């Protein structure tokens, strides 16, 4: 690995994308993700890439569609209201099975909401987001280093599965500085893209479309997509466990909230309370199997989110009624504190909920 540098999450994300071979960025300003396009506008021309500030998120995401059609490694970033506007293109991109990477630096909502960190786009991100029967692959990094690692891998995953990958970050992770290391030498994967529309010289022409008017064929396409997602659920799920071996209560949290939860688990352990942490890193596909396995030993679960309860639905589905699943959430840009989460852990252990 190279030299350690102190970087903001958003800038580290942008640099990681460039290291992963991303040469095209189309975006639109919105807080709290502006460091990403700003960094890209500065760095991409240095490496022979292209930065375009689009007229809207709608246009930016359709430029991504075009660049992905042309076979490029391409990405955009935005924040919640902007991501809503990108759902049109994301549905087309998923339908046409094109690779791209999208970062959502989530802020509080609904509507214009606020600009402070939130996890209230979990359902939109993991359940499809736009119209039609599709999924993005979604990852929720928990540190600046993990933002780097996941972003670099995201391009490989997108190419391998021909599917859009979303990095679900938030204002805290985006603005936070932590030491990061980039690999000294990284060779971006070179997965052939014979399907790309690059001009039909020397081959039959390619057509990229998500239109299929024959219901029989469209159903076949839907089935093929579902099989892809099933395969991904076997290959892409990942999570991290902390002190879960003997835990009476396991906190389930991702991203920023998992950092707070880990501090609360430490506090609980110091106080003699057997708490642990289950941190999903892949949010779609969700690490349901590992969570179900854990349910055979853990006493109870406590899902903590910066929302009024979204991932908790997946936790409950995974645990499948075998153990109680409790919830604690803060929303609107409020972040749960270590003290609050510790208090909730104690309540669960003492049977007060």
């Amino acid at each position: 690995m190279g030299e350690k540098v102190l970087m903001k999450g958003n800038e580290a994300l942008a640099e990681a994308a460039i290291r992963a071979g991303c040469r095209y960025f189309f975006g639109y300003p919105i807080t709290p993700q502006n460091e990403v396009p700003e960094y890209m506008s500065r760095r991409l021309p240095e490496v022979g890439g292209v930065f375009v500030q689009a007229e809207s998120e709608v246009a930016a995401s359709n430029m991504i569609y075009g660049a992905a059609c042309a076979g490029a490694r391409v990405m955009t970033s935005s924040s919640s209201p902007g991501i809503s506007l990108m759902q049109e293109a994301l549905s087309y991109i998923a339908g046409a099975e094109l690779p791209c990477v999208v970062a959502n630096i989530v802020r509080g909502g609904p509507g214009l909401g606020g600009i402070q960190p939130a996890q209230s786009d979990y359902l939109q991100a993991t359940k499809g987001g736009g119209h039609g029967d599709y999924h993005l692959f979604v990852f929720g990094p928990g540190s600046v280093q993990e933002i780097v690692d996941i972003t670099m891998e995201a391009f490989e995953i997108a190419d391998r599965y021909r599917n859009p990958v979303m990095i679900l970050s938030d204002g805290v992770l985006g603005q936070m500085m932590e030491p990061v290391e980039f690999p000294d030498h990284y060779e971006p994967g070179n997965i052939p893209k014979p399907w790309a529309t690059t001009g039909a010289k020397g081959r039959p022409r390619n057509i990229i479309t998500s239109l299929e008017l024959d219901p029989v064929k469209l159903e076949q396409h839907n089935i093929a997509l579902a099989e892809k997602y099933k395969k991904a659920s076997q290959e892409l799920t990942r999570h991290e466990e902390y002190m879960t071996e003997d835990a009476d209560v396991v906190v389930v949290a991702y991203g920023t909230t998992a950092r707070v939860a880990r501090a609360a688990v430490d506090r609980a352990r110091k106080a003699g309370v057997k708490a642990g942490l289950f941190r999903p890193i892949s949010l779609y596909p969700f690490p349901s199997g590992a969570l179900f396995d854990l349910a055979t030993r853990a006493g109870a679960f406590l899902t903590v989110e910066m929302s009024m309860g979204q991932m908790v639905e997946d936790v409950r589905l995974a645990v499948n009624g075998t153990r109680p699943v409790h919830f604690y959430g803060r929303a609107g840009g409020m972040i749960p504190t270590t003290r609050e989460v510790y208090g909730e852990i104690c309540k669960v252990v003492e049977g007060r909920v």
Partner: protein
Amino acid sequence: MRKVFGRPNALTSAPTHYCPGCTHGIIHRVVAEVIDELGVLDRTIGIAPVGCAVLAYDYFNCDMIEASHGRAPAVATGVKRVLPDRVVFTYQGDGDLASIGMGEIVHAAARGENITVIFVNNTVYGMTGGQMAPTTVPGQRTTTSQSGRDISTAGYPIKVCELLATLGGAAYIARVSTTSPANVARAKRAVKKAFQTQLAGDGFAMVEFLSSCPTTWGMTPREALKWIDEHLEPYFPLGEFVSRGRAS
């Protein structure tokens, strides 16, 4: 025997789904002939719209992409920025380009995106059954302006060529029609210039076709062409609005 007339290489052999008398067929052919004559078929990527030409990817015999409604210029931007040495064109109708996609077309022109846009203006939403479009002229009857477009409530039609001509990035802007053999010949010259503008790297080029929709207009094909000459052309004058590229 000498072959004097045939299908351009840039068109597939698929029979089109366009209605009898619709001018999409002529416009497809004009574009295809130009692509053939410029010898760029194997490095051309076309972007189809949403609307009657949604299946244009079945007819143009090159790499094709189907875009969402109105976004073809944004998709074309993405392709062209990745592959600047390829020829990229969009084929869009009036609802697609001048209504839902107005933002995309204006900004593609303003940026001077080095693409070619074929804009087919038949003043109605044909695919969905003939509703009022942003280019429907005052008094024109459509299924959503059944007493004729009332400018006091529905406002005025948008003159896209005149609007885009104000933008610095627009290198070639022209309006043509296909109502007579002479007009078709003029249209082809304009389309050729629009592609040559791109090949020269001069910037954004667009050709607007005044087009007919006999089906939703409730006219015979011949009446529809006459109606273009008599009712559309006065409102949307033909000609070159911008021609400032090296190719011009």
